[in-house]
């Protein structure tokens, strides 16, 4: 997703990335899972919530591609819907946390007198593990997807703020920012038109890598029972539900776990490739 957003500006970056086989494969994979998640209702052969007590814990077969779970629900359908929920959770928290973090980072870089205060606040946020935010929010608002999204957003804010501040401080030192000030434009215009667009590369790279991390953390929170509640299909929660049958029917846990693994791996490889492609120093 991120790669295609960055592509029109720098056509060579996309081409650079596709030269790397791993990156090309992960890009295709990411596009496929995103499409699969969006079109889950059309792709799923069965209702993911329909239980069939006559067919519980079925191994993968021609009828049930990924088998069935302890209540006889089709795991293929649940995995598709689970991808939808998991990706939504990841994207929502990335966007909320990323936007707030980016605003903080730009303000800290542009108004140097706010810098110390804002970044120390970010350091404080950074000192809490994301799981702790999840526990706290689940305790306050009750477990659920919303709590997880808030927890992950909060955990993303300081990371994004640091990345953005670092990039923006460098750009602030360039002559075209001074030229913009000499023209006499207002701060908002300067930040939106001159500062922010020139900080996009590191933001995209970080966002892609962070999406993988957030999905992993969110699945962990769901696995612990703090996130999506049954019967909602969510990959972490599905893995958790299958753990009672680990020795009888391992596929119930393993399939959603492998799905999480592949999604996170794809975003990590993509993020790394994006960083290499956008960093001109690494260009050969």
């Amino acid at each position, binding site marked *: 997703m991120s790669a295609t957003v960055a592509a029109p*500006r720098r056509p060579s970056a996309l081409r650079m990335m596709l030269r790397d086989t791993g990156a090309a494969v992960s890009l295709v994979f990411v596009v496929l899972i995103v499409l699969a998640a969006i079109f889950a209702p059309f792709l799923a052969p069965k209702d993911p919530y329909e239980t069939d007590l006559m067919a519980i814990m079925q191994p993968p077969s021609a009828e049930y591609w990924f088998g069935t779970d302890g209540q006889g629900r089709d795991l293929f359908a649940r995995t598709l819907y689970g991808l939808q929920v998991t990706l939504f959770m990841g994207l929502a928290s990335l966007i909320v946390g990323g936007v707030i973090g980016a605003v903080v980072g730009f303000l800290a870089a542009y108004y140097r007198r706010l810098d110390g205060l804002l970044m120390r606040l970010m350091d404080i946020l950074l000192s809490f593990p994301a799981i702790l935010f999840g526990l706290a929010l689940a305790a306050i608002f009750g477990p659920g997807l919303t709590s997880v999204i808030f927890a992950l957003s909060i955990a993303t804010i300081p990371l994004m703020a640091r990345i953005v501040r670092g990039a923006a401080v460098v750009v602030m030192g*360039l*002559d*075209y920012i*001074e*030229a*913009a*000030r*000499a*023209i*006499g*434009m*207002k701060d908002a*215009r300067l930040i939106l*038109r*001159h500062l922010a*667009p*020139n900080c996009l590369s590191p933001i995209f790279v970080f966002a892609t890598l962070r999406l993988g991390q957030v999905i992993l953390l969110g699945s962990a929170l769901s696995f612990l029972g703090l996130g999506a509640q049954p019967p909602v299909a969510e990959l972490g929660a599905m893995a958790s539900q299958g753990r009672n049958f680990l020795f009888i029917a391992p596929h119930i846990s393993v399939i959603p776990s492998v799905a999480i693994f592949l999604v996170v791996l794809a975003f990590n490889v993509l993020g790394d490739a994006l960083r290499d492609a956008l960093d001109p120093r690494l260009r050969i």
Partner: protein
Amino acid sequence: MTHLLEVIDIAKHYPAGKGAVKAVDGVSFTLERGETLALVGESGCGKSTTARLVLRLIELSGGTVRFNGEDITALSPAELRRFRRKAQIIFQDPYASLNPRLRVGDTIMEPMEVHGIGTPAERRARMEELLGLVGLAPYHAQRYPHEFSGGQRQRIGIARALAVQPELVVCDEPVSALDVSIQAQVVNLLKDLQARFGLSFLFIAHDLAVVKHMADRVAVMYLGRIVEVAEKNALFDNPRHPYTRALLAAIPHPDPGRRGHVTPLGGDLPSPLNPPPGCHFHTRCPFATEICRKDDPVPTGGAHSVTCHHADTLPPMGAAYQGHISETAVRRLALYAEASAARAGAE
């Protein structure tokens, strides 16, 4: 008639530990309409800081800057924006001075948008006219900065500065990042534009050949202060301050036999964090005496102002350097003149 620009005793001190770095420490000068004042000096002497103080791109630690008689140090943010329409800047590094993500046309139109000049159609027409003025073509407006060479980018920077029809343009080493043949084109372009629009230039440079070609008057800076100001020819023919002499003597000479008797400067530029007492230059001055170590000299001499205790008693400058600038510089000046003539012939 007031001066276009009157700078009175401006200072910029950066706090550093217990003391302060006195980047600019009591600089005064004036600039008339249509005039070019060159500010020369070695790296770190405060030239660029002075330029930015004059435009109030950084806040002053002291002193006053009057533009058309109006004290710009006291302007409100709204008034400051109006002032920015009258005073613009051209940068040294043509690779850092253009936003890489804006099309060239948008970069040039932006100052007009910010100041609400004209309708979108008028701004576009004016932008294309500006591109023509600086020797580019209207179709260049659709391109991004990375598609241009250094000299072309510098022309774009000039077009941006002229978009709001300023009276004063600060040129911060506008040609030092360009190679010599391109320098000639850009320097002549600046002169043409000055003649055409009656611009005043505050021209920062360390290259004396460029200064000799561009300037009407020259101010020499050393360690945050101006040590000598004079009409260009007076300064080159009869440099009065020992530092100015050293600067002129330091221009490389192709014939070692013609090297004069001016002793090259020893030592390094003292730290502006802890400048020497008395005359700032005394640590490196071959003529320094007791008084130089104690008392700050004051500018004397009216139109050819020099800040030196011994200005009147110094021996005349070595004959080899009388009115001399090096042959390479002479060749470059000839090149500039040639380019200028070719340009005039073409029109």
